[in-house]
């Protein structure tokens, strides 16, 4: 019995394990056209809107609105709120109204082809307020710092709720090369004539205010928690250097309290559109709706959501988020420097390069030469550098507080 030198451990290995994920073109299958219903009724007193459209093929662009439908919501006491089409596929209630506690509401749609769609009666859930909204900076999975906008809800005594969030974010940006003056075209036909004038007040003072709405479905729940309080729930992630949070940023957060079936519906939408595990694949399928077609077997897409809503707006300055880290503007200074150009008013062909450039460029300044050649009196810079109106209007929105 002997255990001799078994330390001949010797190995040599070449190994490349590649787990490969790549995109591919979705091949088109038999086209189907199903009604898509986006209907949200809240406790907010307003003219509620409902959107109707049709499903499209996967490679299609744009939306096919469902026109000329008859849309109404009725409550359990048989009060009917009729809707009228204000735009293709967009229906607004004729009167303003709000969903009330302990009442059930039913959506009815009769499409132009005579098909009838009816929702199950939905009840308004209880209300919960937003306590606060704040920003923290954390590293993401890739080790990059991110600003995370989080919210707490006001703790309520109820059993636990289902929450959905939407937001509109508005951010102040600065044009890197803003001038108070601009070029005014006196004549755009020969003889070309230009002059420098002061910008009017509606051109702003070099800042713009962009606004974007949330695109993904943001859900959370407190049912599994010991109290009904949404705590430090992240609603928005922004890379720390992003210009969105470069100067001042505002978020208008809408918190919806949902019924369980509504929550389940959104949950499945999320689950099917954002698979998080590359090793296993969720069984996908059509998500059952609470709206049923009178034509049996017809798929109905969408949901009739009855929810309570709370809204809150907050502002953050760059210094509130990160006092020491600079942000990257939407366009870099070097790009702007590279875009500088000193065009001729009239060239040898009798055309005006200056006039042509004014669609993409704006006034930057005068040449430093004390005696500039008369044909090249101005220096231009790319429009995105001199203005920021492609991002948003240059004037403060009404809600904006500096």
């Amino acid at each position, binding site marked *: *019995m002997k*255990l001799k030198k*078994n330390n*001949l*451990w*010797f*190995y040599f*290995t070449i*190994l490349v*394990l*590649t*787990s*490969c*994920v*790549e*995109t*591919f073109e*979705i091949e088109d*299958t038999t*086209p*189907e056209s*199903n009604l898509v219903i986006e209907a949200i009724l809240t406790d907010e007193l307003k003219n509620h809107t409902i959107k109707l*459209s*049709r*499903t*499209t*093929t*996967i490679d*299609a662009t744009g939306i096919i609105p469902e026109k000329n439908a008859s849309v109404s919501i009725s409550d359990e006491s048989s009060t009917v709120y009729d809707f009228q089409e204000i735009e293709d596929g967009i229906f607004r209630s004729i009167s303003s109204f709000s969903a009330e506690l302990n009442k059930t509401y039913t959506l009815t749609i009769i499409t132009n082809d005579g098909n009838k769609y009816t929702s199950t009666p939905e009840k308004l859930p209880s209300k919960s307020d937003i306590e606060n909204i704040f920003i*923290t900076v954390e590293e993401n999975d*890739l080790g990059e710092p991110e600003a995370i906008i*989080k919210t707490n809800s006001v703790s309520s005594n109820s059993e636990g709720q289902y929450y959905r969030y*939407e937001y509109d974010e508005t951010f102040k940006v600065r044009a890197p090369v803003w001038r108070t003056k601009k070029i005014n075209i006196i004549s755009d036909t020969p003889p070309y004539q230009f002059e420098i004038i002061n910008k009017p007040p509606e051109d702003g003072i070099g800042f713009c205010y962009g606004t974007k*709405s949330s*695109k*993904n*479905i943001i859900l959370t729940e407190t049912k599994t*928690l*010991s109290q009904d309080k949404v*705590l*430090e729930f992240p609603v928005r992630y922004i890379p720390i250097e992003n210009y969105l949070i470069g100067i001042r940023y505002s978020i208008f957060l809408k918190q919806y309290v949902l019924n369980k079936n509504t929550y389940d519906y959104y*949950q*499945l*939408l999320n689950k*099917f*559109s*954002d698979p*998080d595990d*590359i*090793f*296993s*694949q*969720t*069984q*996908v*399928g*059509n*998500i*059952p709706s609470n709206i049923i077609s009178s034509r049996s077997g017809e798929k109905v*897409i969408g949901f009739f959501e009855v929810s309570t809503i709370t809204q809150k707006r907050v502002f953050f300055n760059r210094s509130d988020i990160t006092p020491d880290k600079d942000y990257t503007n939407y366009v870099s200074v070097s790009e702007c420097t590279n875009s500088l150009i000193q065009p001729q008013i009239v060239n040898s062909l009798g055309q005006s390069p200056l006039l042509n450039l004014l669609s993409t460029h704006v006034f930057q300044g005068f040449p430093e030469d004390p005696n500039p050649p008369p044909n090249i009196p101005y220096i231009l810079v790319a429009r995105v550098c001199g203005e920021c109106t492609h991002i948003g209007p240059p004037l403060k929105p009404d809600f904006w507080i500096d």
Partner: protein
Amino acid sequence: MKKILLILCMLLFWSVSSQETISLEVNNLNKKEVIQLIEKKTNYHFFFIDSWLDKKTITNSFIDVKISQILDTIFKETSINYFILESKYIVLTKNNLIKKSVYESINKDSIITVLVDNKTNSENQIKKIGKEKTLKQKTYILSGTVINYKTGTPIEGVTIFEREKNIYTTTNNKGYYKIKLPYGKNRIETSFVGFDSQIEDLILYNNGKLNFSISEKAEQLDEVIIDANRNRNVKQTIAGITQIKAQEIKNIPLVLGERDILKVAITLPSIKSTGEGSEGVNVRGGKVDQNLFLLDNGVIYNPSHFLGLFSAINPFTTNNLKIYTGNIPAEYGGRLSSVFDIKTSTPNTKKFTGEASIGPVTGNVNIDIPIVKEKSGLILGVRSTYSDWLLGLVDNPDIENSSVSFYDVIAKYKHTFNDKNNLKVTGYFSEDQYQIASDTINKYGNSLVSLNWQHKFNDKNRGDLILSNSNYTFNIDYESQNTNKGFNLKYKINETDLKLNMKYDHSDTHHFTYGLESKLYNITPGSIAPNGATSEVVPLNIPKEKALENSLFVSDEIKVNKKLNFNVGLRFNQYLALGPSDQRVYQDGVPKNESTLINTVTHNNNDIFKTYHGLAYRLSGRYSLDKSLSIKASYNKSFQYIHRLNNNTTATPIDTWRLSDANIKPQEGSQISLGIFKNIEGNKYELSVESYYKRYENLLDYKVGANLLLNENIETEIIQGKGKSYGVEFLAKKNKGKLNGWLGYSYSRSLIQLNSKFTEETVNNGIFFPTNYDKPHDFSAVLNYKFTKRYSFSTNFTYQTGRPITYPTGKYTFQGSEFLTYSNRNQFRIPDYYRLDIGINIEGNHKIKKFAHSFWNISIYNVLGRNNPYSVYFETVNGNVKAFKSSIFSVPIPTITYNFKF
């Protein structure tokens, strides 16, 4: 010894003329104690070696007898002789007679005294057999058994011969032989194909015993053809049994350097896997949960590591794997589709041996430790990944922060008490840990203990009493410092099984197997506990489930005549769902959900709240058209009371098992099969065609997007439906020659029907549709070519129809984002799967006396670099739908593995 011989020589010529009489009372004393007693009571002094004396006790009273009478009595049935010197000294000898004089003539026959030339026999120690008697015969009988040195099993057909004298015999089926040899010196040799021959020089003094234990030729490269089994393919009554021996898979190309017995199984036409990175196998269109994996009779719930890339069965300690895919013998139950019966090697009780292997992913060591020579031994196998660096190599930021590690340990102890009793104990433990999403750590593991007492009552009756306990757990640890949702989730299933399995060889016509089995299931479906200081997760404990499954079984292998055989088996199952439990009662005829809940009935501990009975039958028959051609048919039914819940398209380690209760009915399955089996040139070529049709009742499926983990009302998410699968399988094997291997092809379908009056419980309008593992065409080829004794080349090719998937058929915009609408479930398929692997095996050189035997394997997995899509999924990115396909191994993967035995 030397001392005694010296004394012997000195005293040799002093003889005893007269003996005194002695009285002695011997009461339950062994020989040594008797000698000590004599020494105490008389003046005699004994010379002997302790080890000659056995421990048998004697009770006798001697009154006024001569010392020789006492000694004759004590040493009656032994090979001890004695010699009394000068009324004082008694010299004991083994075998030899001490003669008073060298010239003493013993017998009229005057047999020549044995002469032993010590020089020429220096290699072999001369064995002395029998007690020399003064009265000698010309010939004596030598008998004994021949066993396999490694396994301890008797070997039939070994030739025992004395070359010079041309005397020979062979062993019978118990390894027993009897040979008549002349008195005196003989040289006995053994001869058996594939085994080293053993030579014993012996001096035969009397009838005696000589046992041989012979060992297989070290690393036999030429095939060892054991022809006893040559027609097994054709002759076995039951169709659909495959046996894979661990040794046979050595030459198949490896995945990441791992020799993997379960992966080899997948190359057979009846067994399929969903793909790389998925767990489990589908046998003849059955679900993943319908396979019973037994390791030394204990159940393993998850026999795979690393998300299914490796099997959790240590290839080095495994002796063989038997797979029952057709007619499962009545002694097995509880699963519908198959039994994978994995047996660990028998520990070596003679010699310390070991084997080690080094591959790029894992290291593996296994050793055989004899504990009590010839009686008991221990096998210990340990396997582990080195580190997470495997994943570190992946050029994918999603995976960079991930980690995967696993290990498994197996130990088997076997003790042979005597010819009739032995005890085997196996312990197994495996654990996996992986972290794919960076905040979640998943762990899972099996543990298993099994005891098997084997008893032979007589030549016709034998039995096994088996007690085993298996455990499977998984654990999801989600820690997030900044939200209140950190949690730790635990799942556990435990089963204890007691089984009595008896065999009764009634006659040549009837061979019975019968017994009973009782299994206690205990499931802790999950508990969730807050993790981290800020976590506000409410601790939740889904109530435990408990059930007892009792079975009685009997089967009879009937040989009607040489051509016609039947195997008839019955298994009666009783399933008792036990409390404590809160069973929810729902309205009849409507979908189960919160609003149709009528009430909840509470049952106390061990209350039987639901009973299911089932009579499973296993019928099969074989008819031989001629010696090499046979037809087999079978019809059987099975029940399954435990269900694996999974709403992904492929199996994962965190699938939960759930017991049948008042709301979840047991699964049922029946299969009819027919096959033709043909052997050509002995068993050089084996051909078979098998077809089957299976039906299932109460297969579990789920409503779209069901949440199965930690769901208290899981029955509200479950749909039970019918299933059917059918197919035809071709297998051609070449077992001998330089080129060997097999080709397998199957055409098979696997369908399920989920139909109900209610749309939420209906899938695809209630018609039969393909299951997730329906892969009609499946072809595989495993070929091995030997260039020389040391070099061989092997390839493995697999082709499969792509797995069914649910495809997006359209899109729509909802709340500013695009979403998809889907086709009918499993209406489309992902692209076909094919893969070619190659490997080169290099054996170390074959010096017989070499201490360690080494073996290299160089393999390339997926030589063609085929980017086999493993999954296809769709994601809404910035409001636009994008389609992704993912594959696990998209480039060729070379590996080198080094093995050595010591």
